[in-house]
């Protein structure tokens, strides 16, 4: 799992060459509660690191989804738009949000590895 990185906004990013698959973490879904709506970025659009790249809504509130790195959106997961409950069921697997063609690999250095993220998530929920 060494190729998975995490942001402070509770997104995960999985690397495959110069393509990154991005979603929200299990910890994020636990904080949000039942997700009932998801909005994804447009395929073909470009997104900037830490910029908004989607929205999720739980029964309680709406939350922005941020992109941990910059790039061009090459694919989006429409199955989570059709059935947002998938995000709660398998947030770090089947329920990925979008895929990016990475613009600048150096941006990856700002992200956390799993241990760092777990520690961060634990501290931030206290």
């Amino acid at each position, binding site marked *: 799992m060494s190729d998975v990185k995490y942001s402070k906004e509770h997104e995960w990013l999985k690397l495959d060459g110069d393509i990154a698959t991005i979603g929200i973490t299990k910890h994020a879904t636990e904080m949000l*509660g039942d997700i*009932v709506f998801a909005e994804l970025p447009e395929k073909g659009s470009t997104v900037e690191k830490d910029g908004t790249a989607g929205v999720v*809504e*739980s*029964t*309680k509130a*709406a939350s922005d989804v941020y992109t941990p790195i910059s790039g061009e959106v090459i694919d989006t997961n429409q199955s989570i*738009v059709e059935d947002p409950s998938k995000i*709660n069921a398998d947030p770090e697997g089947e329920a990925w949000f979008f895929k990016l063609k990475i613009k600048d690999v150096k941006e990856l250095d700002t992200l956390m590895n799993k241990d760092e993220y777990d520690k961060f998530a634990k501290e931030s929920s206290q």
Partner: protein
Amino acid sequence: MIKKTSLYNLHKKHNARLVEFAGYEMPIQYKDGIIQEHKFTRSNCGIFDVSHMGQLFIYGKENLTKDLENIFPIDLKKLNLNQSKYSFLMDENACIYDDLIITKILEGYLIILNAACKEDDLRIIKNKLNNKYDLQLKDDLSLIALQGPEAKNILEKKVEGVSKLKFMNGGNFKFSDINIFITRSGYTGEDGFEISIKNNYAEKFVEEMLSNGSKMIGLGARDTLRMEAGLCLYGNDIDKNTTPIEANLKWAISKNRIDTDYPGSKIIKKQIQSGVEKIRVGIKPENRVIARGNTKIFSNDDKEIGKITSGTFGPSVDHSIAMGYVNNQYSNLNTKLFLEVRGKKIPAHVCNLPFYKKNYVKGEINV
């Protein structure tokens, strides 16, 4: 300081996520989450801690009914012993200080008030009654709601006779060695009961209901349940800027009180006769987007015509649902509207309330 109800330890034990609500530390949800809790209530029996709500007892003999009729727009004289009615506390402009349930009890009345309003309500009511009566806002009593189709069976096992109560009627019952007061009422669109019980017995009572198959339900599901049932939440859908007529709650004003005197009576009469400028309607967005409170509403020709006051996802109707106020001319059923969410105009339409109508199980219809 943040207050705790008598069930606080029980909430903790059931892994509640606690939030501050109206000055109390209250459970927003437990470990199953809002959607499961919502569905469990619709199919089985949910337990809600609503002890934060005010239980105001007013005792007095002569003239109490008459004096209360000068405050509330209902026909209290016709209220039978232990019968309940929904009503409002209003100002002279018919704007709503609070919505409430008033029940005739022996030698007085019990009024259930919203948690955030109860202290102000007490002051207002006391003042209007010229301090003539004995008013007690009880904090030694808890209030527990049991809601759902199985509520009557689960409660009957421990409180004999309770299933004979009619809707919006109550009575005194025994639990263990103490008296409890129960009304058949609720805020979910389901059959159910609200139980007023001494604080030091509340936990024991809830434990018994849990062991008979009900589950703890948080305020999150309480909100989605009441939204589906088309019920107003004070502070969102009704407040000091709305009247009962604007809120489409005319049914709660007793017919034979329309021509009589109470705070706001002139405005209510005028609004009934000549209509209102804005009115509360049910609204269904045409996709899954949730339009929350304060979302702007636009007409088909792009005029701003109102605001959403509550919006959520309805787990039982499996749809985004909302309610809000629109200019009266746009309030007809199926009127096309647009809701501005995150800069986009989402198509929606005016729909009937409630969103969810109870489907009684087969066999029960003929009983």
